[in-house]
């Protein structure tokens, strides 16, 4: 009877082949892993993937925080306190989310500096830079909307100041302040609005843009450093 069964190695391949035949995911994965990159890429070119890691970390810790957090002026601060002081390892989740945002901003500046100095925004990677620049502005928006959520004294006043800065813009400014705060002052609605922006609107746009950014990076390939000595020799290519 046992002779009817294929050898173990073949058994393992059955589900893999099944998936491949129906989706092409396996060959896609192989393409992703085994595509070539220039020989002399440098450590500076790991900053983008580090950013991706931090983004995933922020999403994960953010989801965990959302399981306890309530965006209501009466309970927001109390739930933050609960997460920090009482929930098992809550301080670690919140701490990593909080410090992750700072680290992300630093990495953004470094990654931007690296692509700038490498001239990596030049043909054909202009769109990679542009998506990156919009990502950068959105990350700043994440941090602005996230700051209020703790709803302690610092959060409250910093947000008033931030909203007032918007308010100084001519014509649109006061309207923008009003829209952000949902009225003339920070209220229940302000908190819900910031929460919706912080955990739904901006992250989904950001996720989409990061996806496009990655797609471009894979399609165009990463640059080799400007000091690269690799030269096209006659008869090559």
């Amino acid at each position, binding site marked *: 009877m046992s002779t009817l069964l294929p050898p173990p190695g073949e058994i393992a391949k059955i589900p893999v082949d099944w998936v491949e035949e129906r989706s092409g995911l396996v060959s896609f994965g192989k393409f992703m892993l085994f595509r070539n990159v220039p*020989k002399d890429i440098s450590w500076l070119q790991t900053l983008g993937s580090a950013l991706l890691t931090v983004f995933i970390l922020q999403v994960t810790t953010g989801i965990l925080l959302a399981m306890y957090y309530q965006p209501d002026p009466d309970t927001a*601060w109390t739930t933050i306190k609960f997460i920090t002081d009482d929930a098992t390892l809550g301080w670690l989740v919140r701490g990593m989310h909080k410090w992750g945002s700072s680290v992300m901003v630093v990495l953004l500046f470094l990654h931007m500096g690296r692509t700038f100095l490498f001239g990596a925004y030049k043909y054909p990677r202009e769109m990679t830079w542009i998506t990156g*620049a919009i990502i950068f502005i959105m990350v700043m928006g994440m*941090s602005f909307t996230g700051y209020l959520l703790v709803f302690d004294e*610092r959060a409250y006043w910093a947000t008033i*100041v931030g909203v007032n800065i918007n308010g100084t813009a001519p014509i649109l400014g006061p309207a923008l302040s009003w829209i952000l705060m949902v009225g003339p002052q920070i209220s229940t609605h302000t908190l819900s609005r910031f929460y919706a922006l912080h955990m739904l609107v901006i992250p989904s746009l950001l996720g989409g843009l990061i996806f496009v950014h990655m797609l471009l990076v894979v399609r165009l390939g990463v640059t080799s450093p400007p000091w690269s000595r690799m030269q*096209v020799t006659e008869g090559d290519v």
Partner: protein
Amino acid sequence: MPRLTARERRESYQREYAFQKKHGKSFFPNAVFHDTIVSLIVVALIMGMAILWHAQFGSVPGEAEAGRIGGLLGPAYEAKADPGVLAYDPRPEWYFFFLFELLRLFKEPALLIVGSVIIPTIWMVLLIGWPFIDRNPDRRLSRRPIALALGVMVPIVLLTLTFYGSKAPGAGGAVSTEPGAAAFANGPCSTCHTLANAGTAGNVGPVLDEAKPDYETALNLITNGKGGMPAFKGQYTADQISCLAGYVATWSGATGTTPGPSAPSAKATYPASCEAAGGDFAGVAAAGG
């Protein structure tokens, strides 16, 4: 070397890159290995900061309602937000310090929008449009003097602004937590008056640290206005005006935490009047309403 047309240049780049790729190395395991190491270091750094942060405020005894503050890396959380608290020194997250400092540089009411809107907008347009602005096809820094100069200058300017922003008093300028200070610093007063205790540096009206008005003078001026000084009768309640007058009289000409010379006359109503002025005072003033 003959000058290449833009199209030839693009094609030549494509050729060069195809060559580099052909003679390159596989993404896995080479680049993946480096990426993994750096990602692990970054995650470890974030965890380390969270642990350090927790360890430090963890030693603060459980005065929980007042928040858990202290520690190198800042508080776990401060006291619950209370619009009724008149004095707070608002600070943004550190990576907004450069914007914050920019605003302080353009504090004059007429110039405010330069710092708050014009410069940030120009900066964002430059950032997004940069690939179209820099048309120099060369990638070597030695052939990109302008880009190199910018690449050095921008970080220096940002770091300098961040440094001074971190040292700056709070947004409205309130350095002190005296009753009335926040209302003064976040309200219209700050744009026109210099008052050290509130950390404001307006220069439309008199420097209050030099004028050292007594309570009655201040009350009268704030209520009825005079010359360039607007009347605030319709804008603030009597208690709020009394609070501001008391604050100004007590703390103008003050050195550190020692009240100024006209303090005695202010004693009767201040700081009780600030409490009576009630919750929304600073909030409304700060919101510019």
